[in-house]
């Protein structure tokens, strides 16, 4: 089997002395959709932040294609091809959509083909092209989400991590967002997705991992999850 893009072993991380993640193991294979699900507050976002270098790792290792990245600066991790579309978008509110997208290509090597990438992003997300001169703070929820994803795509190929892309959106908008995500999967992107609700991804995800209280308690594929209603009820609510 090809080397996994991301290999996490026995990871522990947290904030201000509070341990959120404890003994986390995860393998993210190339060109696959890996999903992390679980109730809120149990560490899903913390895991992505730890991978991106925004939260300090207190124990364990994170390896990107064999090279350790835990302990590196966030900008160094981005440089090595780990791109996160954070929860809540975190757009630059005072900048236009276009400027936000261009910030996605901030890194020197990405900036070189910014033009080509912009075309690609606009092709995938035509709404963004329409609104490219609009100030990001005035966009609707779905448009903001698309802007965030577009910004992530501007950063180039590499591991794409999405933190709750369906958060706060109307169902019909969520459909549109997921259409884009599944298109990316089909094109061979390696994607690590975090969602509270497994509904949308049970069929398409190549592997699903359930994070509870800072560690993984179950892993498998969608069909297996659907066959275990007790898990769904216990961890994911009705």
């Amino acid at each position, binding site marked *: 089997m090809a080397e996994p893009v991301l290999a996490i072993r026995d990871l522990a991380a947290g904030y*201000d*002395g*509070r*341990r959120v993640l404890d003994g986390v193991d995860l393998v993210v294979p190339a060109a696959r959709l890996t999903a992390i699900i679980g109730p809120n*507050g*149990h560490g899903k976002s913390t895991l992505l932040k730890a991978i991106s270098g925004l939260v300090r790792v207190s124990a364990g290792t994170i390896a990107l294609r064999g090279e350790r990245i835990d302990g590196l600066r966030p900008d160094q991790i981005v440089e090595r091809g780990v791109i996160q579309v954070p929860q809540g978008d975190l757009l630059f509110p005072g900048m236009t959509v276009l400027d936000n997208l261009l910030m996605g290509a901030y890194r020197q090597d990405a900036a070189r083909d910014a033009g080509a990438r912009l075309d690609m992003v606009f092709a995938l997300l035509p709404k963004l092209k329409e609104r490219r001169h609009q100030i990001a703070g005035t966009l609707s929820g779905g448009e903001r989400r698309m802007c965030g994803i577009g910004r992530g795509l501007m950063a180039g190929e590499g591991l794409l991590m999405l933190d709750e892309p369906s958060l706060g959106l109307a169902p019909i908008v969520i459909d549109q967002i997921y259409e884009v995500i599944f298109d990316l999967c089909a094109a061979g992107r390696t994607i690590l997705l975090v969602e509270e609700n497994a509904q949308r991804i049970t069929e398409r995800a190549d592997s699903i991992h359930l994070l509870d*209280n800072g560690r993984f308690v179950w892993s498998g594929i969608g069909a297996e999850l659907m066959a275990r209603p007790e898990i769904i009820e216990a961890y994911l609510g009705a």
Partner: protein
Amino acid sequence: MTPVKRDILIGLVLVAAACAVPFLFPGRYVVTQATLFFVWAVVVVQWNLVLGVGGIFSLAQMALFATGAYATAMMGFYWKVPMLAAIPLAGVVTVAAGMLIGLACLRLRGPYVALLTLAIAQVLYVLIVNDTACFTTTGGCMPLFGGVRGIGQFGDLGFRALMPKTWHIAHYFVALGLLVVAVAMSIVIIRGPLGLAFRALRDNPGYAVSRGISRFRYQLWIFAVSAFLTGIAGGFYAVHFRVVGPTVFSFQLLLFLIAMIVVGGLGTIWGPLLGAAVLMLADEGVKELSDYRNIGLGLLLVLFIILQPGGLVRLFSRRPKRAADAKTG
């Protein structure tokens, strides 16, 4: 032993030691320096309530101290009010001033409060010092607030007349009494429900607000309450030195007091006291090197805030910082 019992025990020990001092050191110097230490300690303990417990970034404490001092002096000078009445009244005036400042500033976020309170203190200083209009002419031209030379001849507590050789010891015990009240108040507030409310506000503001804790009202309350003893300390300062001038607005003094809180430990009960003691002793030590005193003070402040922001009390506390935190699920 509960924390409160331990605090009371520490307090009793310290008071006993303090009572012995005038008898162990019969000369004037130690007693008068210790009296000054008590005054600053009262101010710093109050300031710690505002800054460390209330989370209010106020730099107006010295302005409030000055309000108490000036109010006392002016009541005595212009209306011949006896000092025993003037000082408590000055405390009330200071509370009023504190509430005004609080109303103006407390709806703003941290750094805004700091700048605004600093500006207010500066404006008061400028107004007093630049006033050249002669308000009265008893003993020469004197502006309303005393101008640069300050206000004198407003009376005192009476100890100088009663005990001409040992009035400084009487002042010593008055100041000690003030400090005891101040620390007791500090213990009651920090260990009591108000302290809990402020910790909640700091750790989880959304939740605290949802439980009905209004940040503005609580902060205004603690600001006003701390103003009372600060004003009284100012009044005592006035009768102790028998003159009040704009030197109380000096930035170096402000720095000196901030350093006490930082070195001792912000937000703790005994920290400010410890810091005050350390700073006063250090000041004694560098009296010779007056030029370097200020540089040394600044350096001390910077080193402590960067290397040991918890202050010296952190060295004595072996409890983990957030023992009360349960893991949130």
